């Protein structure tokens, strides 16, 4: 039997090695690409699964004539991650908001915990854009910092609604101080306007917890020009007023006019908005109570 020459042997060995090296390199390359593209999915080299949300829960203060308008805003920060995180307070400035003082200045949150902050802020209520709280700063266990946006900043307008009339998001006036003989008792026309030029959409109007029918059904306040809104009193005297008294203020649900989305927020027909709005009170005084009482008497 004839044996191959050593040169032939080396050539065959080279070919086989080439094929093997090519195959290994290909596998390595494919694995590298898979690792590069997929690292976000399985967490190789990424941060931990820390996550937290922040939301405005209360807005108090704002009454008086001072500008910018002082208020106290309560924030809740929820740690929905699997690790303890440290909340390092908020940034100093938001959109139209400046945080003067934060209590506590920072706090640590175990998984599942809700932490509370009270922020003394000043609000630029004259701003026609939506006000926004500054981001919350979060320190992750690996030392990285993360900024968390604060939801519910729409509620900041509630403080503005208690401030001087010139910076309120919405004011109301009666088109006729008392019902005229030609006007049906159960109807009242109010003129709504925004002294700051803020564009807002009126979602609901209530009196003492009772929803009033409004016409037109969608009211958009585009600025200082007053918009007539016709209110219809409820039939009869609602039980809500029997103990709490006859209301002198209208309670109005507002949201920014630019936000798209379907309408209201009644108990059975919720809606999705980019950012939930605010609820403000419009004081009409005894004139409102007189109208509601007249409608009560007429119904009974």
């Amino acid at each position, binding site marked *: *039997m004839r*044996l*191959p020459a050593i040169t032939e042997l080396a050539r065959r060995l080279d070919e086989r090695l080439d094929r*093997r090296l090519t195959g*290994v390199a290909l*596998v*390595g390359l494919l*694995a*590298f690409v*898979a*690792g*590069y593209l*997929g*690292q*976000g999915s399985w967490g*190789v*080299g990424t*941060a931990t699964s820390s*996550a937290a*949300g*922040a*939301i*405005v*829960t*209360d807005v108090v203060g704002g009454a008086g004539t001072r500008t910018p308008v002082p208020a106290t805003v*309560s924030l*809740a920060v*929820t740690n*929905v991650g699997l690790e303890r995180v440290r909340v390092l307070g908020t940034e100093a400035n938001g959109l139209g908001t400046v945080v003067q003082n934060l209590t506590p200045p920072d706090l640590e949150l175990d998984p*599942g915990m*809700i932490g509370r902050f009270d922020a003394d802020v000043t609000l630029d209520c004259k701003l026609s854009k939506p006000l926004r709280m500054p981001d919350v700063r979060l320190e992750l266990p690996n030392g990285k910092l993360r900024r*968390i946006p604060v939801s*519910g900043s729409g509620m900041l307008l509630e403080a503005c609604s208690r401030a001087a009339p010139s910076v309120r998001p919405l004011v109301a006036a009666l088109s006729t101080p008392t019902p005229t003989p030609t006007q049906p008792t159960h109807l009242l026309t109010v003129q709504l306007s925004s002294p700051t030029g803020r564009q807002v959409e009126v979602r609901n109007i209530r009196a003492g*917890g009772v929803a009033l029918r409004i016409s037109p059904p969608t009211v958009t306040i585009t600025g200082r020009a007053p918009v007539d809104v016709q209110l219809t009193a409820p039939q009869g*005297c609602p*039980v*809500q*007023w*029997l*103990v*709490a*008294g*006859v209301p*002198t*203020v209208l309670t109005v*649900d507002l949201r920014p006019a630019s936000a798209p*989305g379907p309408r209201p*927020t009644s*108990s059975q027909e919720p*809606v*999705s*908005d*980019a*950012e*939930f709005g605010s609820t403000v009170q419009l004081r009409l005084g*005894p004139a409102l*109570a*007189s109208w509601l*009482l007249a409608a*009560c008497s007429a119904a009974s």
Partner: protein
Amino acid sequence: MTVPAWDLDAPAGPDRLVTGSRSAFILLLAVGLAGLGLGGLAGSTLAPAASPELPATGTLKIRDVHVNASSPLPTAGSDAASDDSKPRIGKAIVVFRLNVVNPGNQPVKLTGLALDGVTRTSYLLPLNVQVASHGSIAVDLTAYPDCSPGQEPVGVRARLNATEPDGSDLETIRVAPARTLSRIGGLCSQLNVALPNGWQAPLWANSARPVGPDLEITMDDLSSARLDGIRVDDQLLPTVFIGDQLFPSSAHLRVGETSVLRLHGPPPCIQFGGSTPIPSTARLLVRGEQGMQQRLLIVGPELALWLRLDCD
């Protein structure tokens, strides 16, 4: 020079075949794993940091409160709160406003809101709403709290049951109640602030009508209610407050007969500042076991009508 007689074309023996395949497999596996690791490392270093998925959050506050007056009423003067055999009145109804924000990329379906601190047991309000991605909802929910004596004054805690829109991946969303709800005293303390004093066991007027400048209010027999006042002949001059103002009045009380309370007019003009509603209730001073007490008398809109509101 002697060359070994290797015959590369000769068939390999079974052992050699197995050893070679195993080596190749291990080599490929090692290279693959190393590639994955290096790729992941390179990816995490070079790729721009993806913004973290933010969780859905919610907040809960009181929108409105009122007292349920639809229940049958007990006899005036009886202690409704302490007698379970009689229909109870003064049951508060609370309308909560729930706001939920979903900053994530997937919609979230809410199936229920579980509340602690509203009744003695956990209170579940069913929901069937969807929060769009990068959207929010506001839902008004009615609840019937238990503020009877003995109820623990705990703060309200709330959590939402949520699923993916297809019903999978059940999760819980923590809801942060408003400050006033979450502190000790919680909901019942807030009801006491929002409603007139004595709302849990009020007296109830059967009718009220203006008689000349006066307002005449009739009630069930009040003779056992131990009204405080000065007795003149067969008339009692009781102590009656409306708002913070003392009103001159007289009462005609006979056992077994309808009681009549007369508020003497014309009523003074009362200034109601801020957002204070026009009262539809009065408060009577009564002698109780622990000294003088005030009892709420629910009159209705007739009282608000009788009061002078045009002070200007």
